[in-house]
């Protein structure tokens, strides 16, 4: 059984005054196995964020279902959805979404505090991930005092600290300079190698070439997917570029 399964997901946005409706997703289906590192690529406005939000239960699908580790998200009661999210998912956002009222440390602790964990346990968990993430010596700082890359690493720590089943990342390198992007991608790879399942949305070819599989989304549907298998990053990069060119030409696969 797959860790994550998306079945025939449809999403229609209705504008407030009933007028036009936008079909953001149209029959999207795919699966993610445990330990996989999957990238989702597509043009801006192709529905990537919408898809990720539905998987994270931040948004509701108009039709279709998401099954995580055998649990149907649509069956989770509204009341329990937030708890479900913080126990099972780690979300990394493009714009970090750190709270400026908290130090980095407290930002990272937030999901654990919400889960009612003991301070000692929280400290223990943080100690394990802070060093590899390279944030051990800036934990007491506030978001406004650190760089974008450092913020994003703290956000990754916040996602990792709950030991989530899947990490969902929405263009995590989107707001970073190239050096910080490279560092973050290396980090994701490392985390994945330790067994963490990652689902990352991106429109950077370089970012996607790190993944073990890339899904291409166009006009609200999965258009194509390629596996990395034993290919190097460079070869993967080439494969992705080719697919993107194809996509841009609007041709069929």
């Amino acid at each position, binding site marked *: 059984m797959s860790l994550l399964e998306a079945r025939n997901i449809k999403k229609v946005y209705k504008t407030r005054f009933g007028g036009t409706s936008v079909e953001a997703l149209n029959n999207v289906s795919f699966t993610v196995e445990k330990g996989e590192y999957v990238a989702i690529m597509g043009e801006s406005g192709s529905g990537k964020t919408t898809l990720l939000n539905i998987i*994270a239960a*931040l948004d509701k699908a108009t039709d279709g279902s998401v099954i995580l580790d055998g649990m149907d998200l649509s069956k989770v009661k509204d*009341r329990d*959805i*937030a*708890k479900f*999210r*913080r*126990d099972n998912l780690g*979300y990394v*956002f493009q714009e970090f*979404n*750190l*709270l*400026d*009222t*908290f130090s980095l440390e*407290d930002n990272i*602790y*937030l*999901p654990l*505090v*919400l889960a*009612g*964990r003991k*301070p000692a346990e*929280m400290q223990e968990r943080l100690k394990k991930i802070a060093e590899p993430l390279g944030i051990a010596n800036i934990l007491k700082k*506030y*978001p*406004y005092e650190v760089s974008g890359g450092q913020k994003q690493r703290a956000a990754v720590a*916040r996602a990792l600290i709950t030991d989530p089943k899947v990490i969902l990342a929405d263009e995590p390198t989107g707001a970073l300079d190239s050096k910080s992007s490279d560092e973050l991608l290396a980090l994701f790879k490392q985390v994945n190698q330790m067994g963490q399942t990652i689902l990352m949305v991106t429109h950077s070819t370089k970012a996607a070439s790190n993944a073990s599989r890339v899904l291409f989304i166009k006009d609200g549907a999965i258009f194509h997917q390629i596996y990395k298998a034993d290919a190097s990053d460079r070869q993967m990069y080439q494969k992705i570029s080719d697919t993107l060119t194809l996509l841009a030409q609007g041709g069929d696969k």
Partner: protein
Amino acid sequence: MKAGFYPKMAVSGMRKNGRLYVPFIITSILMVAMFYILHFLSFSGVMRGMPGAGTATDMMVFGVYVMTLFSAIFLFYTHSTLIKGRKKEFGLYSILGMNKRNIGKILFWETAIMWVVSAALGLVAGIGLSKLAELGFTKLIAVPTKYTFSVSGSSAVSSILVFAVIFFLIYLNTIRQIRFANPTQLIRSGRAGEKPPKANYVVGILGLLFLGSGYFIALKIEQPLSALRWFFVAVIFVIIGTYLTLMAGSVILCRILQKNKKYYYKTEHFVSVSTMAYRMKRNGAGLASICILLTAVLVMLSSTAALYTGSDECLDTRYPNEVGAFACKYGYDESLPLQAARFDDLINSVAAEHGAVIQNNCTFSEYSISGYYENNRLQVTLNSMTDMAFIDYDRVAQIMFIDAEVYNSVFGHDVTVGPGEALVGTAKNIEIGDELTIGDVTFNVTGRFDDTVTEIDPVADGAASPTVFVIVNDSESVAKEFIKYKDYNGEPMLAWFWNCRFDTGLDADGQIALASDLSAKLKEELKGKGFSNYYSESHEAERGDFVGTFGGLFFLGILLSIIFLVSCVMIIYYKQVSEGFEDQSRFGIMQKVGMTKDEIRKSINSQMFTVFMIPVVFAGIHLLVVLPIVNKLLMLFALFNFPRLLLCAAICLCLCGLFYGLIYKATSGAYYKIVA
């Protein structure tokens, strides 16, 4: 650039930020209105002629200063947070090619426009409200046109000038805020968010010190009138202390809570404590302002309510008998005993004319000398004027000498006092030992009658300075020892008082007629005899005055309270709206990270409740500390009823709490609407 460019830019800038500017301008309009009304009451003399008018006016004048300070702090602080939110906009302007001078000009016009609007509308509001008050006085309480509120040019000019200064300071501060930043810094500052405040222990402790010493001074004051200056110092200290404590102390408290990991890392504390720590420095100013306003409202309402509801009581205390008369002459001459006898005849004849039967007659004369009392010794002459500067006004005492024989016959006692002996009585706790030296005459104190001193002077408890009644064997011969003392003007220090009060058995009109007749007769009798003061009064004639005066004060209290409370509403609204916009994205993030709507709501509620309670609790404590002084001040109005004051204070606290709760509820609706 074209003429009118800057004003136009200024107007459009304010309009774009109307959400924040409108409440700010409304608040400053209200402050101008408050200032105008207070200034008018203090300086136009409308209060003249009321009993206790001097004190009330002093308090009002002080109120004007406090109001000025308060407006300055509040507007200054609010405006600087307002500008903080607009730094990005200014950054954009400078990238578009404006230099700091240009931006400064826009800001100048902004501030100038705000000043003009606030001053103009504030004056209209102030004058309108005072007209309303005048109508209220005459219609509701049916007080004769004693308090006519009219337009006062000097008050209007003062309001305009004072607020010109305040707005000019605001302008300077704004310039300072944008001066030391380059455009990119300005642009970034909007997004980067504010630094979380450091726990500033120095300021926090300073705040507590101010608060503590303010309380200490307030609680130590025995004689509110002579120590009015100290009372004002206490008020200023408490205000400063409140601001510092709420701004810095609360951050410190939050930081301490954050250090306690067991407490801090709990779902219900985590978010609220950190958010409060982040905000308190800014919120502190608003909360302190609310607290000061609430305290002022509570003090005004409870004291004037106590007076109004107790006006009959005051009247009865102040005028225990139906008719009273008084005469006073400085210096000594042989004719005085004879004069007393002539007074008796006069009263008897006037009473007879009016068909009155004199009952409960309490007529006596006494000699008086005042001086500086210390170590059982009354120093009648002070060495020099410089002594005056250092004297403790609570120790300026008045000594009244009364014959034992008079004391026995008039007040129904049976005491014997030998030559060189004295019985003493005083309402003030002034220490008198076994020997009492007055000038260079020493008496053996053979007894005390402090408990019954109100027999002689019914308002002794409320006297501004301590009065000591000394019962002696022969007051006339004692008085002769003091003829030699002269004051700085060469006038004699010794005085002779004649007091008279009695019941008549007549109806109200009869009493009033008798008193006024007596007054005329006294004038005829004493003309050209060197008396410094004499009058006759009646319980009934004073009734309307008392009810009117106290009703007027109560009305004033209500009026000012309404204005103060409206300012509170504006401050709270302002706080809720600006925080709502800040929290919008914050709660979005929390939800994404896995906080349930329920948890968010709980954390908002706990935060709101804490923030809601802080000013009320502080105002309650302030009120408790100040009540004893208020009670002493009320004694000057002849109200000796602390339980009544307590009751009024409790009722006012409940009412204000209720009102405050309601506005909080209403404005938190605005907040929820924004964050939801």
